[in-house]
């Protein structure tokens, strides 16, 4: 039996928590107005490409992480440079998500200072990572159905508030729709690139790879339904101006005198909010381990956690700063990096493999007329 701590079923559950948890605080593609749900649907396509690229790379190099494959196929210096860019992209995602969760918790616990809330989350993640990576997988497997239950209950409870007229006209203008598609592809769908770091630890990926695609598509459909729910209740303008639209909807839900149901859903936010931070945080440890060529990532857990917590507070001292950076500038950096990073490595790996094959079977490569005098492979 393979000695790999995460099963493919657990990775599928982690995919669900990563996608759902990253957007519970935000409507992906909300710049597209009432067409945000279409933007989310279209935005899931680049994520599918990223998922395909990391799974394909895993099939080609089953024992290596994407950061190790990068230096292997691109060379030490270009590979490390790309890894540094990738590290920063994942760091921004982790810091952004941390900030969002802390803001949400500050609304619920206004008396606790935000640095304390922020480090309570980080210490929870540190505890989880120190126990082993298997814990992250089991956490996802355990909470998958609970999260699904709360999401379905939330949708059912808010059905009486739905007003489908708010979704019209379907596509007012195509340009904001394209922008919304890019934003939703960036966050959360391109986050799938993080699995390039975890796949060598997953068992049975060859046999059960379809499960990961299936849970990716289920998560995309749920996100589209959540978008539809939010837009049809709050309308496009309120969706854009409200800090936490889904939380706002659960505030509106109630039966007669029975109100304040949003606190019931707090467990959903805590579980699905912390799970993506655990995965991104562990991803940062893996990338740093490979950049610095260390034998073990465990000594990096505490220092990286402290850096993440401190720099989140340092970079985003206020909501205004975060809004300007988070929605305007961050996607311009993270979207191309997370889309191109696995794609470039996959292309380089395929080219390298073809060259190696041609080298091993020089007779089988078809020769081009007029180039008989040239060597078959270029010298490096």
């Amino acid at each position, binding site marked *: 039996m393979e000695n790999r701590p995460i099963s493919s079923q657990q990775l599928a559950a982690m995919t669900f928590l990563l996608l759902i948890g990253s957007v519970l605080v935000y409507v992906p593609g909300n*710049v597209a107005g009432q067409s945000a749900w279409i933007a989310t649907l279209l935005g899931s396509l680049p994520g599918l490409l990223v998922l395909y690229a990391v799974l394909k790379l895993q099939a080609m190099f089953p024992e290596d992480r994407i950061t190790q494959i990068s230096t292997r196929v691109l060379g030490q210096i270009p590979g490390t440079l790309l890894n540094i860019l990738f590290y*920063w992209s994942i760091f*921004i995602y982790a810091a952004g998500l941390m900030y969002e969760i802390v803001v949400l918790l500050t609304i619920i616990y206004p008396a606790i*200072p935000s*640095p*304390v809330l922020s*480090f309570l989350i980080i210490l929870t993640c*540190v505890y989880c990572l*120190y126990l082993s990576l298997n814990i992250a997988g089991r956490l996802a497997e355990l909470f998958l159905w609970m999260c699904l239950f709360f999401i379905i209950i939330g949708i059912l409870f808010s059905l009486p508030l739905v007003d489908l007229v708010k979704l019209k006209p379907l596509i007012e*203008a195509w*340009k*904001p729709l*394209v*922008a919304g598609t*890019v934003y939703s592809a960036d966050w959360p769908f391109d986050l799938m690139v993080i699995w390039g770091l975890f796949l060598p630890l997953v068992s049975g990926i060859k046999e059960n790879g379809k499960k990961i695609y299936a849970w990716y598509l289920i998560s995309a459909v749920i996100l589209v339904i959540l978008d539809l729910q939010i837009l049809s209740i709050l309308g496009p303008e309120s969706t*854009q101006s409200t800090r936490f639209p889904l939380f706002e909807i659960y505030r509106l839900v109630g039966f007669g005198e029975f109100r304040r149901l949003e606190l019931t859903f707090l467990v959903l936010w805590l579980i699905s909010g912390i799970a993506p931070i655990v995965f991104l945080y562990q991803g940062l440890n893996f990338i*740093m381990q490979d950049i*610095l*060529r*260390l*034998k*073990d990532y*465990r*000594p*990096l857990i*505490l*220092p*990286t*956690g*402290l*850096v993440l*917590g*401190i*720099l989140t*507070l*340092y*970079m985003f001292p206020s909501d205004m*700063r975060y809004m300007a*950076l988070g*929605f*305007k*500038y*961050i*996607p*311009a*950096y993270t979207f191309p990096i997370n889309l191109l990073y696995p794609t470039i490595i996959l292309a380089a790996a395929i080219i390298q493999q073809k060259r190696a094959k041609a080298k091993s079977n020089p007779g089988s490569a078809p020769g081009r007329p007029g180039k008989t005098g040239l060597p078959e492979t270029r010298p490096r």
Partner: protein
Amino acid sequence: MNTPIFYIMLLFVLLFAVLEVKPLIKKRMFRELVAASLILLLALGYGTDLAMDWMKLPNPRGLITVVAPLSQSFEKTLQVNQ
């Protein structure tokens, strides 16, 4: 002065010293020890800067705003209204 940040930094340094330093020295993994200590020092530097409200160190936000022109032209082209 932001006192909770100092307590948090102290907690992390103590945890690191207790959980990591001794095993790393025992296993003679000095590369790991140096790398982790440097990252910890970076965090302590930024933490002190933040807690004392000096804000003297370069803000990593600058690495994000580098892409501002690209982002602005994207928003202009696609009529993004946020």
